[in-house]
């Protein structure tokens, strides 16, 4: 065993502290990204494509990976630290404002979708006492309680190992129940359904773009795409292996779709997995509110303490709408808004020279 340690200079100590803070922020965005990808895969893509989900879900990530690549390219070319700064350099101040508003809108829409899934999972799926509004208010209270400046990122950083361990345990049990014929038919219920699934899931990977904007823990290290992408691929494969195609594609309400991945787990593990899912959704909503507030204010370089709380309240307020209409509206927004983001990224990446005066 090694008994000697590095002597830390003050600079080294400061660097290590900064690295710790960056790592926490990276884990926060990674968790949000993984939850967003999984939510779309489980509630939108898998019910359409059934047993084809194990390969179709990763395929639907490809546009998102391209957007991530474009974001990285833009950041490298402009030398900016954030996408908003890159937009200011490449497209001018108006471009930066549009970019930040677009990102904030996407994040809030995604937060509202996660909130809808969370509340529906609680009220209709699991069946605890409480109406949609009550659960939304409870979640809002919990969010306001924990929407600290650094607390959320640090809390997610702390909870990542217990959450991953629980997910790995559930995955291991699911693996014991896996059947190879769950992967057939490879094309799912048919060509038409497959085309519809691709259309619905094509924008699924946009959250990966935000991973490009987080400073890596160590300079020069690749921004880690692997955890969210890996989690999505593993989860999609497991769900397909455990559930027959007919079960996956059976018409079902949103709540049932959310509970589907853990349907065949033993009762205790199923309850724990549902709890883990709800916790992950809750953290994703809070993160969306916090990141959204950051993007709204980024062109002005300001920080407003109450804004994340206000955005969380706005997200919670969406639960006053009827669930089915809300879900359809959010799904449509999350399909088309990333296209605008992709367009902006293409414009920024293709720009040869920075705007004059910037």
């Amino acid at each position, binding site marked *: 065993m090694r*008994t000697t*340690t590095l002597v830390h200079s003050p600079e080294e100590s400061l660097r290590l502290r900064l690295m710790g803070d960056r790592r926490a922020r990276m884990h926060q965005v990674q968790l949000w990204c993984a939850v967003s990808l999984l939510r779309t895969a489980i509630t939108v893509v898998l019910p359409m494509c059934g047993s084809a989900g194990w390969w179709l879900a990763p395929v639907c990530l490809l546009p998102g990976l391209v957007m991530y690549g474009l974001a990285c390219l833009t950041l490298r070319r402009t030398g900016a630290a954030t996408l908003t700064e890159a937009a200011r350099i490449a497209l001018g101040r108006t471009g930066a404002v549009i970019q930040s508003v677009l990102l904030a809108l996407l994040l809030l829409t995604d937060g509202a979708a996660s909130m809808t899934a969370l509340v529906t999972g609680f009220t209709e799926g699991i069946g605890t006492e409480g109406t949609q509004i009550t659960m939304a208010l409870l979640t809002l209270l919990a*969010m306001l309680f924990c929407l600290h400046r*650094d607390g959320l990122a*640090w809390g997610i*950083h702390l909870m990542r190992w217990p959450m991953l361990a629980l997910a790995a345990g559930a995955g291991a049990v699911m693996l014991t129940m896996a059947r190879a014929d769950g992967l057939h038919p490879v094309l799912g219920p048919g060509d038409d359904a497959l085309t519809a699934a691709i259309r619905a899931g094509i924008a699924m990977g946009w959250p990966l773009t935000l991973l490009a904007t987080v400073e890596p823990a160590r300079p020069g290290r690749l921004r880690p795409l692997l955890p969210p992408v890996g989690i999505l691929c593993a989860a999609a494969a497991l769900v397909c292996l455990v559930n027959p195609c007919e079960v996956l594609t059976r018409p079902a309400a949103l709540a049932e779709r959310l509970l589907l991945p853990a349907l065949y787990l033993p009762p205790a593990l199923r309850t724990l997995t549902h709890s883990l899912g709800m916790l992950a959704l*809750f953290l994703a909503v809070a993160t969306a509110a916090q990141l959204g507030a950051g993007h709204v204010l980024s062109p002005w370089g300001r920080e407003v303490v109450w804004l994340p709380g206000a955005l969380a309240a706005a997200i919670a307020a969406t639960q006053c709408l009827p669930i089915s209409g809300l879900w359809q509206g959010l799904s449509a927004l999350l399909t088309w808004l990333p296209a605008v983001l992709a367009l902006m990224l293409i414009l920024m990446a293709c720009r040869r020279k920075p705007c004059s005066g910037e």
Partner: protein
Amino acid sequence: MMNDGISARLARSLEVMEQRLNRDINDDMHCRFFRVYRREAAVYFVDGMVSADFLQHYLLTPCLAHAGDALPGEEAASLEALSPLLDTARADTYQDAIRKMMNGHAVVMMDGMPCAVCFDVRAYVRRGVSQPLTESVVSGPHQGFNESIRDNITLIRRILPTPQLISEMRVIGEGCPVSLCLMYLRDAVDPASLDRLKSRLDSLHVDHVLSIGALEQLLEDSPWALLPQCCLTERPDRAASFLREGQMVLVLDGAPQILCMPVSILHLIHTPDDTSLRWQYGTFLRLIRLLGAAVTLLLPGLFVAAVIFHPELLPVTLLTAILESQAAVPLSIPMEMLLMLLMFNLIGEAATRVPGVVGSSLGTVSGLILGQAAVEAKLVHPLLIIVVAVASLGSYAVPDYSLGLACRIAQLLFLAVASVFGLYGMVLCLGATAIRLCGMRSLGSPFAAPLSPDRTHNPDVFLRAPLWRQRLRAWLANPRRMERITGPMRGFDRRRK
């Protein structure tokens, strides 16, 4: 004027002192007149706070012996020279003189001398050094702090005999000042934290600080948070350990505990036994304590959530037994649980307030009789008694009293959430609590570090690695002095480089 200078005329000084000390109604403020160096002089002291022998032998006798001698030099210096064995200090204002007098000094005023000379003849009643009452250990020293600031500083200095150990004396409280000592290891403390603590102390405007707990409340970062953000200890070895880690301690006169800042949540879970015992035992005990805290916090809520919302989690026979006996009980399960938890808290509080042996007997007897009687009267379910007993036992395994109380309060919160929203509500609540905890700070340092955010640290968090692998100070220390030692700690052991 409160800060007016001491008059060279003794008559004037006597007049002011008589008035400010309320001597006409204050019977324990004494004044004695004598002659020294052919001048009139007076000594003021508080009865019971000075040693009569010291006063007589080391002050008054030498003064009277020189009653007829001519003044050899400057007045104050000549007076000080009469008692070379006593510590002396000069006071230029009446306020200073009175403050010294209230701290047990004898204040001498002499005609023609424009100041007072204060002789340290303090000897008040104090408790001896005894075993710590609330922090018992199996292995390690059995000394505890007492109420004397001087004794407490000495106890720490005996463990850390180094001039790098700084003790800065201060006075706190504007109406009734109390002595306060800020101690730190100069080469280990983080200068930023030290400045922050000093600035907080300087900015305090209070009439009087009655106890170290009151000081804690005045200095902490988040007064609304449930968790304590400072650590109180009555063990000198623990105080020394904090100092070695680069933390600061505050010693308050009259308090048998010292206050340590900054701390993390881990400091509230660790005990001196963890370090004194071999690493395997220390790790085991620490894990048991963590289990105790988790059981206290979650078990009642988990039981209620499982029975009401998630019966699939319980074996069928157990569930049947619970539901059958529940049919005969008038209260719902959450209400039963709440009632029993409140009852156990009541027994615990009552046992704390009654004296020693009676207290422990009262706790045992009350627990047994009340539990048995409640089951026989079909007020509560027998399994519920076991759950409540285990949960209550867990709270006593938490080493920090404040943290134990916080766990017992949070337990009720989790019970309420579990009763309404089941396990999912509990998970949300647990997540929100964990995030809130991570966002807290102690003297500006992250409260959950080094767990989150990552900080350089020894392998001494949940598991305690062998001592020879613990080469760093805490992450709270001065970044320039993170290493305690360089080179191999066990120089003889060639296997471990």
